[in-house]
């Protein structure tokens, strides 16, 4: 049997189906749901029942959530998590995780921060934007996930000025 050349570029596929878009006019977005009756959002999307106890709606729209948010909190994970976490192909590297407040949805959504973010540079309230990055890869594909990328304070318009704070790590 002849040797098969491996394709130079592996397919890039979402690590989970239906949780985020890869593209769009304004970039990728998380896919949530919005209750048609009371306006409550859910992430991941919830198309069967409304979490609002006063609402019995069964009608929901799939919606793209805000791409921009503000850090509610953040951490750096220094130890490799257990399976089903899959380390990147180069081996485990500490990575940062953020909890991000979305203003329109009035909710906090988790996500990894983009590779290489230094948590000592971050502060609560800082603006972040949603991007898509590789989570891990295997022989078949590169698996993608949503991540949050900090925006430099001077690169954003409309972000409230905030005193710089320093923290011991």
């Amino acid at each position: 049997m002849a040797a098969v050349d491996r394709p130079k570029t592996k397919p890039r596929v979402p690590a989970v189906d239906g949780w985020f878009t890869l593209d769009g006019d304004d970039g990728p977005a998380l896919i949530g749901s919005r209750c048609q009756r009371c306006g409550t959002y859910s992430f991941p999307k919830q198309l069967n029942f409304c979490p609002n106890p006063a609402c019995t709606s069964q009608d929901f729209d799939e919606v793209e959530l805000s791409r921009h948010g503000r850090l509610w909190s953040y951490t750096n994970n220094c130890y490799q998590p257990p399976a089903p976490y899959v380390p990147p192909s180069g081996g485990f590297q500490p990575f940062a995780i953020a909890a991000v407040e979305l203003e329109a949805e009035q909710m906090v959504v988790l996500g990894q921060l983009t590779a290489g973010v230094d948590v000592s540079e971050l502060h609560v309230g800082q603006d972040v934007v949603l991007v898509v990055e590789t989570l891990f890869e295997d022989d078949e594909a590169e698996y993608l996930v949503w991540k949050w990328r900090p925006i430099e304070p001077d690169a954003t318009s409309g972000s409230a000025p905030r005193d710089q704070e320093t923290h011991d790590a």
Partner: protein
Amino acid sequence: MRDHDVAILGVGMHPWGKWGRNFVEYGITAARAALDDAGLTWSDVDFVAGADTIRNGYPGFIAGSTFSQALGWRGNRVASCYAACASGAQALDTARAHILAGLCDVALVVGADTTPKGFFAPVGGDRPDDPDWLRFRLLGATNPTYFALYARRRMELYGATPEDFAQVKVKNAKHGLANPNARYRKAVTVDDVMASPIVADPLRLLDICATSDGAAAIVLASMDAARRHTTNPVKIRAISTVTPTFPQTIIEMPNFATDSAAAVAPPERSFKDAIAWAAYEQAGIGPEDLDVAEVYDLSTALELDWYENIGLCKPGEAERLLRDGETALGGRIPVNPSGGLACFGEAIPAQALAQVCELTWQLRGHAGGRQVEGASVGLSCNQGLFGHGSSVIVVR
């Protein structure tokens, strides 16, 4: 006495550790100790409530019947309760409800676990519709990840420092020195904590509780039945097992997002505030009435959150309470005189029961070198994965 009191006739534990044996052994040791403490035998028990363990390699649910079988089938009624870390409180509440409904006189409540080394991991297999599986796959979010998010927020909002967090460990380690059931009985310094590796920034290894083997058991009885055995028992006056109220706006394990508050304003009390509050309302007392508290210090920083959640101080004042020594033995309101999870490590289904065992010893004046002088009202607080609150108030 109130008409919804039940008596704690006996308490018992198997020491926490990393013993590597089957959890049923630990549970039976604790159950027999609790029965001895009550002056009763297995044949006196009408009802068994088991705090379940479901993970860690055991197939299926491990239930009240497991302990009944190990003590010897007697055809007694059982209940099996799973509420993650709050399982013990749910089992206790189920037993209490049976007694208060007149369905039984004496109930045995048992929780026990054997845990793997390292991080808690989700149940095995490919389960891409389970948020507890997906948070590890998509985020690499371990339990300490969530603890760290809360800790960092305390630092930014309230000016907490890593040294404050370390001081919680120092305090609890000192308390635990006098506890024969604690796994770690060694004094710890701030420098020790600060020299331990960062697990999830800003939390270090010694800020985060370990996973342990252990068991705790409690014999409950109706006040009428109790009078045949004792004159002044410790009594359970309240058990809270509440869920959050929508919208729950604090991110919780194992979720990816909070509820949305776009349509409904957040409730007056956060989930963790509401857990203790429900117990206070049931008991007809307030935080000012407490002599001692056992709270769920999964991390050092989380213990500070609990000070505020159970009403010992206003939000943002927990660090001051700690720095002033008010929550240490000898202080105004000692917290975790047992040594807490810092000295025990977590044996999930046993932990909420272990808190009540400690409060019972405290209220009897039998806590030895960790005794809170004159304690007559105690509160435990705990929170289980997936929205299980638990708080127990005991009085004497």
